[in-house]
C-alpha cells in the first residue's frame, strides 16, 4: 500500500521568529522543522504500510528556500521519498493556492491508496487545505481521523466528534486528515537519520507541476490579510480563598460559565 503524507515545514515554535509587517505573514527565512501536527500523520502512514506488509510512504511538502530540514526528520522516521515544491512564485499563497500546488505534487508522487494530512498546521491554522485537496483531486475526504484501517478498496476511519467518534468509510484513494495526538510518533532511529541523507527528494517548481504562476502566490491569492493584531493577553484568573467553602464557590463559578 502506498500512502502520501502532506507535511508542512514551519519555524520552530520554540523560536518562532517574527511576523513581517509588510506581508502580514510569518517570516519563513529561518530554519524550518517538521510541524508536530504532521508527525502523527507520518506515524499513521508508516503503521498502515507496515500492517499492509508492503508499499511505501511518500512525503509532499511546499516550502521556501528548498527547505528539507523537516522532510529529513520524516524520512528518518521511515518515509521512503519526498516531493518538495519550492518556488519564489509561491510566496503569499493562500490556502486554496497551497491546495492547488499540493494536489499536483501528490499526483507527481505516484499512485497512492491514501493521502494523509494533519487537520490543520500549527502556524497557519486555516484547517481547510485537506478538503480543498480532495475537492481539486475529485477524491472523497474524511476529517478528524483518530484511527485508520484500509481493507480492500475501502478506508475505514474512526472520526473524532465532541461526544466520541463516528465510524465512517470511503472508497480509496481518499484524503484523510488526522487529529493531533492520536498516535505516538516514533523517534527516528540513528540509522534512520543516516539513511535519510540518501533518500530521494524530488524538488520541483511551479512550472514543473504545470501550474500557471499567476494562479498561486500573491498573484493568485483570493484571500487578503487586512490587518494583524496581537492576541489579547490572557487575563489573570480569579483566586478563590478556601475558607472551608471553597469547593462551593468553584462549583458556582463553573455553573455560571455553564460548563457544568
Amino acid at each position, binding site marked *: 500500500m502506498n500512502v502520501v503524507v502532506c507535511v508542512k515545514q514551519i519555524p520552530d515554535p520554540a523560536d518562532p521568529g517574527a511576523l513581517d509587517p509588510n506581508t502580514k505573514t510569518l517570516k519563513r527565512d529561518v530554519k524550518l522543522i517538521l510541524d508536530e501536527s504532521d508527525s502523527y500523520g507520518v506515524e499513521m502512514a508508516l503503521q498502515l504500510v507496515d500492517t499492509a506488509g508492503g508499499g511505501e510512504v511518500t512525503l509532499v511538502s511546499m516550502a521556501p528556500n528548498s527547505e528539507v530540514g523537516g522532510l529529513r526528520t520524516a524520512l528518518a522516521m521511515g518515509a521512503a521519498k519526498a516531493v518538495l515544491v519550492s518556488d519564489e512564485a509561491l510566496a503569499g499563497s493562500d490556502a486554496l493556492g497551497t491546495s492547488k500546488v499540493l494536489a499536483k505534487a501528490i499526483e507527481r508522487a505516484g499512485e497512492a491508496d491514501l493521502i494523509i494530512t494533519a487537520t490543520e498546521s500549527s502556524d497557519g491554522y486555516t484547517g481547510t487545505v485537506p478538503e480543498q485537496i480532495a475537492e481539486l483531486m475529485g477524491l472523497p475526504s474524511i476529517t478528524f481521523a483518530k484511527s485508520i484501517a484500509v481493507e480492500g478498496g475501502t478506508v475505514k476511519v474512526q472520526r473524532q466528534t465532541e461526544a466520541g467518534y463516528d465510524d465512517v468509510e470511503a472508497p480509496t484513494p481518499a484524503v484523510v486528515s488526522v487529529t493531533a495526538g492520536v498516535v505516538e510518533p516514533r*523517534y527516528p*532511529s*540513528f*540509522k534512520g*537519520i*543516516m539513511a535519510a541523507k540518501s533518500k530521494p527528494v524530488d524538488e520541483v517548481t511551479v512550472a514543473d507541476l504545470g501550474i500557471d504562476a499567476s494562479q498561486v502566490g500573491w498573484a493568485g491569492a483570493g484571500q487578503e490579510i487586512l490587518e494583524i493584531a496581537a492576541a489579547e493577553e490572557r487575563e489573570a484568573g480569579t483566586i478563590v480563598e478556601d475558607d472551608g467553602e471553597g469547593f462551593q464557590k468553584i462549583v458556582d463559578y463553573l455553573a455560571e460559565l455553564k460548563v457544568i
Partner: protein
Amino acid sequence: MELELNEEQRQFRDLIRQFTNREVRPVAREMEQSGTYPTRIVELMAEMGLFGLTVPTEFGGLGADTITLALVFEELSRGWMGIAGMIGSHGMACKLIAQHGTEAQRDLYLRELASGRRRSGLALTEPDAGSDLQGIKTVARLQGDHYVVSGTKTWITNARHSDPLPVLVKTDPDASPAHSGMSILLVAADTPGLLVTRDLGKLGYKGPETCEVVLDDAVVPAENLLGGIEGKGMSQAISGLQTGRVNIAARGVGVAHRALEEALSYTQEREAFGRPVADFQAVQMRLADMATKVQAARSLTWWAADRLDRGADAATESAMAKLFASEVALEASMESMRLHGGYGYSTEFEVERLYRDAPMMVIGEGTNDILRTVITKGLRNNGIPES
C-alpha cells in the same frame, strides 16, 4: 578551522535532546531515588540504535564518530548521568571486540550487541588493583580447550546484564613485565563458576548497577580469548581508553550544563530582599564563571574527540578533556547547590543528584591524578599541544 557540527551530528544531537527531555528528565529524580531500573528507557535506547553506537556499520551498528559519541553522552547526562552508564562500558566492550576480536568473535557478538539484544560491560578493576592494573590477581590457566579462571572483580558496571563480559586476567602470572602476561577473556553469562555476588552501594551514578563479580574456577572456552593470542590484554584494554575518556568528559559537560541550567532558572525565580537573587552581583559572578567553564569543558571535549576522529593519538588531549570536564562538573554542581540555598540540599530538587553523580567522573576511567601523570608524560615526550 571549523567549529561547527555537521548536519548529521546536529540531527543526532537534536534527537537525543528531544528523547532526553521527553523520556528521561520527567522520571529521573523519582526513579533514581526509588532505585527503579529504567527498563523502558533502555528499551527505547535500543530501538533508536544507541547500543550500536560504537559497532561498525557492517555489523549493524552506527559506527559513530567520536564527536557524535560526545554529543550523545552529553545530552543523556543532562537528563540523568546514570542513563549514559547503560551504554558507556557496553560501547567500550563493543569497540574492543570490533577492533581486537577474531572473525568468529565479531560474527558471534557484534550484531546482537548493536541491537541491544545482548549487552556488555568491562571488568578490569579488582579489590586490590584499580589504577595499577598490572597488579591484578585474577588468573586464567589453560587446561586443554578451556581456561579455568579464579579471582574477584569489583566496581563492574552493568555486570548483571553482560553477556559476554570482557574480563582482564593474567594468563601468565609470572611474566615480566607483568602486562606481557595479561589477556582479556570474553566470559559468557551462563559460565559455570561466574557469580555476580552483589550490587555495591553507591553515592550516585544510580540506574546502572555496579557489582562485585567472583570467578570461582570459572570454565571459559579457549576460543573466548579476545583476539586469540595471549599477552595482548593490557594493550587491548588501553586502546579504548582515549575514547572512554572523551565519553566521561562529555558526561561531565552534561552534568555541569544541567547544573548551570538549574541555577540560571532558579536564581531568576527565587526572590530575596525584594528582587530575584539573580539581580545580585555575587550571584551573577558565579553564573558567569559556571557558564564559561561549561563551555570551555565542551570545547576541550570536542577538540579531543576531533583529534581522535582525525586518526591522531590523543592520549594527552583526551586526558585533559576528562580531567577538566569532570572537575567542572564537580564545581558546577556545588555552585548550583549553593545558589539554590537550602533547596539545593533537598531531595525534591534536581541539583543534589548532580552533586552526587559528579564525583564518579573524577574517579572513573583513570582517576584525575593518574590523568595528570598521563598529561605530563605527554608533555615531556611530545611537547606542549598548541592546536
